[in-house]
């Protein structure tokens, strides 16, 4: 399928579409890949069909201004994120992930559901669909399904209890990123004129919210039996002392690290989403993406095991 070929973005391709500033530092705001549709209709733009789809999200992420990042950097100057012996704050080595635990099919009423823990970050994902379009019919697409994502955080998810109104900018942005990630992974063309809803809630937050959501949602989508090209696995990577750190926890994220989030379709090595809000020197980008991809592949192994285990349980229950 030519669409899959178009999805195969390798690192040089990414570099070409990243805005490089004169001083050779880069800020990858959000770079995403294209849903199937934009790939297929890529005839005029060729392999660069994604450029326009990326363009509209530049605007969103541009709102995250640099001073904000700088203030973070000052905040937590006191922590030594990577010791000379190569151990991080919580005792992991640079490339090690947090402990990932997951369960599928946690709710009966939804079509698919999953609960996933990545260290202390815990998320619940629920999938409804595919079903016919709810609300205005005009949103329906004649050749593929619409994916509707909603991201939210529980009031009790952080150290300070806080009411989180619906539709604030952060969660809107996150919802958008999730939507675009899953448009690239779910085979939406199989369900024209229909809709798939993905709801994700963060129950406890300790860094890497986006990646945990993606991983949980993947399991939920699989649980719902919706065909996907591959697992979508996501992971954040930070850059400290010339070393990429995989799967950042909150203390590390807020310690002034330039972090990058990456969602990967591991088998083909295709990148579904790449996001970075900090400035980074171009020379380091490749190493960082490499590390993120390795980490994502690690996550995918765990998810694969969870799915297989779940299948075994289900099949033994049904007596097969």
């Amino acid at each position, binding site marked *: 399928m030519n669409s899959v070929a178009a999805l195969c973005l390798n690192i040089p391709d990414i570099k070409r579409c990243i805005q490089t500033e*004169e*001083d*050779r*530092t880069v800020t990858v705001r959000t770079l995403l890949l294209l849903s199937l549709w934009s790939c297929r209709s890529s005839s005029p733009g060729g392999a660069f069909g994604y450029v326009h789809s990326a363009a509209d999200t530049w605007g969103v992420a541009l709102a995250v201004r640099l001073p904000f990042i700088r203030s973070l*950097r000052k905040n937590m100057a006191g922590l*030594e994120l990577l*010791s*000379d*012996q190569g*151990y991080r*704050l*919580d*005792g*992991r080595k640079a490339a090690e992930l*947090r*402990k990932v635990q997951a369960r599928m099919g946690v709710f009966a009423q939804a079509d698919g559901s999953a609960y996933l823990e990545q*260290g*202390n970050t815990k998320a619940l994902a629920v999938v409804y669909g595919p079903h016919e379009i709810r609300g205005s019919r005009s949103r329906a697409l004649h050749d593929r399904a619409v994916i509707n994502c909603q991201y939210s955080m529980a009031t009790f998810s952080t*150290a*300070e209890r806080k009411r989180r109104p619906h539709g604030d900018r952060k969660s809107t942005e996150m919802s958008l990123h999730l939507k675009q990630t899953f448009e690239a992974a779910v085979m939406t063309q199989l369900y024209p004129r229909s809709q798939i809803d993905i709801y994700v809630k963060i129950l406890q937050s*300790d860094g890497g919210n986006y990646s945990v959501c993606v991983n949980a949602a993947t399991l939920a989508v699989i649980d719902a039996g919706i065909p996907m090209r591959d697992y979508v696995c996501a992971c954040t990577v930070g850059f400290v002392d010339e070393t990429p750190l995989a799967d950042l*926890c909150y*203390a590390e994220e807020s310690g002034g690290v330039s972090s990058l989030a990456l969602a990967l379709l591991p088998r083909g090595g295709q990148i579904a989403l790449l996001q970075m809000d900090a400035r*980074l*020197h171009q*020379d*380091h980008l490749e190493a960082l993406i490499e590390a993120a991809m390795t980490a994502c592949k690690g996550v995918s192994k765990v998810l694969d095991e969870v799915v297989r285990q779940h299948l075994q349980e289900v099949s033994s229950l049904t007596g097969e």
Partner: protein
Amino acid sequence: MLKSKTFVKKTRSGGVMKIVREHYLRDDIWCGSEACSGCKQESTVLQTDACMESSLCSYPHYLVPDTNVVLHQIDVLEDPVIRNVIILQTVLQEVRHRSAPVYKRLKDVLHEKEKHFYTFTNEHHRETFIDREPGESANDRNDRAIRVAAKWYSQHLKTFECDKDGLKVVLLTNDQGNKQKAEESGLLVYKCEEYIKSLIANPELVDRLALSNDDKNEIGSSKVLFPEHLPLSRIQAGIKCGSFLQGTFRASRDNYLEATVFVQGEGDDSTEVLLQGLQNLNRAVHQDVVAVQLLPRSQWVAPSSVVLQDEGAAKDDDVEEEEEEKAVSWVLDQGETQSARKPTGKVVGIIKRNWRPFCGMLNVSQIKESTRHLFTPADRRVPRIRIETRQASTLAGHRIMVAIDGWPKDSRYPNGHFVRSLGSAGEKDTEQEVLLLEHDVPHQAFSQAVLSFLPKMPWAITPEDMVRREDLRHLSVCSVDPPGCTDIDDALHCRELENGNLEVGVHIADVSHFIRPSNALDKEAASRGTTVYLCGKRIDMVPELLSSNLCSLRSNVERFAFSCIWEMNHKAEVLKTRFTKSAINSKASLTYAEAQMRIDDTNMNDEITKSLRGLNKLAKTLKRQRIDKGALTLSSLEVRFHMDSETHDPIDLQTKELMETNSMVEEFMLLANISVAQKIYDEFSECALLRKHPAPPPSNYDILLKAAKSKDVEIHTDSAKALADSLDGAKVDGFPYFNTLLRILATRCMMQAVYFCSGMDSDFHHYGLASPIYTHFTSPIRRYADIIVHRLLAVAIGADSTYPDLMDKHKQSALCNNLNYRHKMSQYAQRASVAFHTQLFFKSRGILNEEGYVLFVRKNAIIVLIPKFGLEGTVFFDTKGKTVPNLVFDEEGPTLSVEQHIFCIFDKVKVTITLDDSNVQHQKIRMSLIEPVITGVSVPAPDAEPQAKKLKLDN
């Protein structure tokens, strides 16, 4: 790999927040011992035959120090004798929390391969991690963690040791309770003192031991001498409500019973609080940050003008105290009589100690067998320190370094310990060492790691090198430098183009080609910041191979350069500017005098001479243009020593002479710097490294205006231009030296020029050069700032690529701070070196009579400048043991009338110069007045003949 989880809950002050963090425990953390067969480690740190010969431990052993031992005895741990030490992560973290300097030193030790120090990450090891028990304090928990880890080590080594030679682990702690508990659990445990004293081969290590708390109690009498310091919490509360003030403690140079605390207020509003008497000084040491409480207004006093030095030998504390009380009351009496009282206060607490190792000399105790001695620091503002040493007899007469350990409230002096000896006092090498240490100039030999980044010799230019370089080897380039210069970093050329314009090139050594970013060589250079030139010695910023050979643009060898090439017309207007990396072959390296001779000699017409003449002509035009714009020409006297070639003693002293060629080179360097500054700022508006010179505040000029007024000369200081013009116009008939003196005074009014990062500042102006933008580009061999500028420029012209730190303005800014600091300290060190050599010079010359000018007038003295030597000295009128003449000081003039004679600024006087070496620690030049003759004040002119004789003898 097993990962298990525990939750560590932490609360933070200020809004209690529960923080949950994961804590992974691992079983792949190895013990780091060579002898271990159980761990799958790749490299080991700790040796099998860990032999430190000790009478307590006759078997091979590893040391495990606890936090307090590391914090207090880092001097001992740094000694090369101490090897095979296990630093636990718990200890490392606690040290990091409690003392940044010790942490830094500990890290340096850990990185040293020969020391065999190993960091064991016990907090993440499955078997050594412990949870805090209910009711247990954090400190107790850490102590227990250390014991558990030590226990684990001893069992681990017993189980897995391959050749069973009884390797053991020894815990070092000074805490009685901890020691007891450790013994109960069957550990080998010693007090640090016990252990160090038991080391057979190295008895001198004992001197380096810092005194611990129990020892201090033994030394001081039980009598409390000082009021207790308040705890930090009460100090903070006091500062908040305004009853205490926070400031930097500055001890007085002249009176050990007096000090001021400089309190930084909001904006420019800062005050000084006066402190008098030992009780009120309350154990603060120069540069400490302290909290002071103001005394009621009725107890305010005026600063005393008395010179008091703490000179008593180590007598009994009681006796001394009585004497002091007398002295204090005398000081206070003096204060009462004067009306100028100042806010006076007392120290209630210390916020931050700023102790460093001090250089100085030992006052050997009169009791022969005594091991306690007093140490007198070279810096008079630092109190004397009591140290314990058995080597007093060898250390007497030596310059030594001593660190302060503490100052208990029942001790007259702070307690300290001996760090190292620098050599015998008065010797040139020792004095130089002292000077470098006191000015914090890094001067160790370059390490192997640094040297490994040097290019391999023999070195030659390869064709690959030339791909990105312009070949300028055919040009007749030459360099002009002071005589004896081996680090030549600039060369020039000038030639006529076909269109009648002139092409002028400034070629700067391409140091950034050899020093690549972020390697050890680069880091070392960045930390040194600048080359320091002392009399007869140069402390290089980069290793000699680069500074005097590969980078130095010597004549008739091919060298890499970074060239700045202008096309100019004959009016010295720049038409085109071009920067390029190049290769050049200098045709001649000349001194200023040689270059001047070539220009003046009409018979010489070779290419180099023609090029020099062209340059000289353009330089004059450039200089005029610059001065028209308002650049200042200031003046300060610099002296050169003629050194004896064998003994390196100064033979003659001469003020530096300025020639046309000096200013010729200077002009083109300025032009290059300005061109480059503009270029890098255009290219990198956020992270260009620039240099600025702020305009001085108007009050700085007061002394200059007053001095000029006394000779009826008007000076305008509204702008740099006005100042330059009025300085040019300032002339007094029959006093040709007046203008120079005035310029010397003007120089003293100026601010310090500084490096800064363009993204962090908005004011770029360079006041002295009257240039809107300026940087340093032309001396990369001796200044690190220039290397950064080279790298920026190389990126700007596409000759090189950036690296992350170059683009980070915060890192740049931190670098600038270091460079400014190093630059300032190197200047101080230079001055101190000149002063020391001046002393040596006068020591060899005996008594001299010279003419000089009054530069400043003070209440009880005049400061005299002797142009012949560029030497400044003070003539006191109230010397000890003489009747004080009738002195009247007039602030307005300022003038000082002594008996009938009135001294004004710029008066011509005649003085005799002698060296006062009554105090070995502080030798100084003494001047006394010969002319005008004032009875009872001036001295008769000593016979000049003995001096002539002495000279003959010397020759």
